[in-house]
């Protein structure tokens, strides 16, 4: 198993390095001089030159890349051009909104999808299955931000149960803060749950046709035990794969959903940064999200080893 884990780790590290080069290269070819941007149009060429030296913008390309990477590793992302505060401070504040949102959505989507998938698979072809999969088919087609708008209309405008947007901050109390994350999380989770339920169903049906399931039934195990203990466990690999991929979509989805609900998360920050051409912020957030996606996929690879004993024994 160690060999397997090491291989996945190496691949993840390699991907991360390549990704950092891509992000750095993109930001390099962008027009505009950060020093000029910070000092404004009235600054003299000399002043700009001094700041450029201070910021290390005149150093050779490779050196600047290494410096940037070293900064990333020590959580020093540089200073925001427009806010004049360290980027890490901005990011830390916003991550406290985006990360809980993505995690709640992921948990919600899993909690909904797995039982629905199991339900459908165990009643394959019957009315319950047809109904559940019809709903899933519809759910896959719904854009999360439109679903969010409909939720706002129903629960915030009509029923006035939850706030339509905004975030009071965690200092306002966990419940109050969570309340403003409920609708965004549901909006993110349901379309994802629809996809996951379909995958769980087809993976389970595949497993339920295997011989060892018949053996388990033949030795007198109740259907429920076979379904949940034997079949579900073996159907987990495709489910985990999709779950990993979904986290990437959820992170991207968070960016859009935050704009629907006016949540002060990474997504709002990145769009503000784009309009203000605060490129160091854009660069940092993109790198952070890409790193998160790579890390999650690595965790999924690791969890294969836990779920699938065959990988554990392999050298």
């Amino acid at each position, binding site marked *: 198993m160690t060999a397997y884990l090491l291989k996945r780790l190496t691949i993840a590290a390699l991907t991360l390095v390549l990704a950092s080069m891509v992000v750095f290269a993109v930001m390099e*070819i962008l027009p505009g001089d950060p020093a000029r941007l910070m000092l404004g149009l009235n600054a003299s060429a000399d002043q700009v030159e001094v700041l450029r030296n201070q910021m290390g913008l005149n150093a050779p390309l490779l050196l600047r890349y290494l410096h940037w990477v070293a900064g990333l590793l020590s959580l020093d992302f540089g200073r925001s051009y427009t806010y004049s505060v360290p980027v890490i401070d901005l990011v830390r504040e916003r991550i406290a909104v985006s990360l809980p949102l993505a995690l709640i959505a992921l948990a919600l989507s899993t909690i909904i999808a797995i039982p629905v998938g199991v339900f459908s698979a165990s009643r394959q072809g019957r009315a319950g299955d047809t109904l559940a999969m019809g709903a899933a088919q*519809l759910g896959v087609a719904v854009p999360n*931000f*439109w679903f969010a708008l*409909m939720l706002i209309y129903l629960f915030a405008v009509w029923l006035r149960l939850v706030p339509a947007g905004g975030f009071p901050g965690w200092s306002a109390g966990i419940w109050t803060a969570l309340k403003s994350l409920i609708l965004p999380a549901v909006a993110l989770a349901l379309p994802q749950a629809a996809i996951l339920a379909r995958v769980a169903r087809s993976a389970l049906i595949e497993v339920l046709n295997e011989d060892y399931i018949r053996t388990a039934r033949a030795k007198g195990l109740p259907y429920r035990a076979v379904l949940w203990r034997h079949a579900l466990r073996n159907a987990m690999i495709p489910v985990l794969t999709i779950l990993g991929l979904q986290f*990437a979509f959820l992170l991207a989805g968070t960016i859009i959903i935050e*704009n629907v609900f006016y949540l002060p998360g990474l997504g709002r920050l990145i769009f503000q940064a*784009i309009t203000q051409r605060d490129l160091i912020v854009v660069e940092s957030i993109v790198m952070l999200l890409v790193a998160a*996606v790579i890390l999650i996929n690595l965790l999924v690879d690791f969890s294969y080893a836990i779920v699938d004993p065959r990988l554990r024994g392999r050298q």
Partner: protein
Amino acid sequence: MTMRIDLPEETLAGVLAKAFGNRSFLIGLAITLLVVVVALISFVWTPYDVTRLVIADKTQAPSWAHWFGTDHFGRDILSMIMVGARNSIAVALVAVGIGMGLGVPLGAFAAARGGVVDQALMRVNDLVFAFPALLSAIMITAIFGPGAVNAIIAIGIFNIPVFARVARAGALAIWPREFILAARAAGKGMTRIAVEHILPNIATLLLVQGTIQFALGILAEAGLSYVGLGAQPPMPSWGRMLFDAQTRMVTAPWMAIFPGMAIVVTVLGLNLLGDGIADILDPKSRRRR
């Protein structure tokens, strides 16, 4: 989830008969054709001119004159949805084209060569997968500014590794087969075998994946134009219409409801079509039923 590939041993008539017996396929095809026809009609006729602003008619509820109501500029929502369909279809179609055009040769090449080439290509695949379409769109927009073309590029780039993986997996299953060995024995080169024997045998997989990516492309395009990274006004796009609707949810909910339903119906149609094609052409699903 593993797809096994069997050679098509059935006749065209047999496939057609199955197609007409498949509900998913028929409904999906009908919806998809409807959307395409509506988009085509919009080139020659729409109920109202979408470029003319009629402030006197602004935010009118659905009526006989305006079936889906009007927006904050007095533009007819139905007409805008019709014109917006063009944009959605064009963006998603070209993005699928980019993904297939580059991804399939890459995947087929990786499968044919194996070894280091395969490994290297798969690592590049991992790299692209690490950038969700929205993130690459953000970076591309940061460089070139927002626009429909940049949305196409961003979604297209994300499609490349998807098709590369499908093509590679499909091709890997075909290469060891006897008829490939026969072709090699007959002296055919790698490229010729790939084009003449591998490609026709993975066409089904690619077609199914194509409809899925088409549907995803429509969703992605809507998301991008919703956050202002896609088609720019005055070009109507479904995502942009939803953005305009957002602040007017209380007074004019129809501005949000109908463009959203256009997206849902289109994506639903494409997904049903994809499921239907997979059912008809995948020999495995036949056994299952």
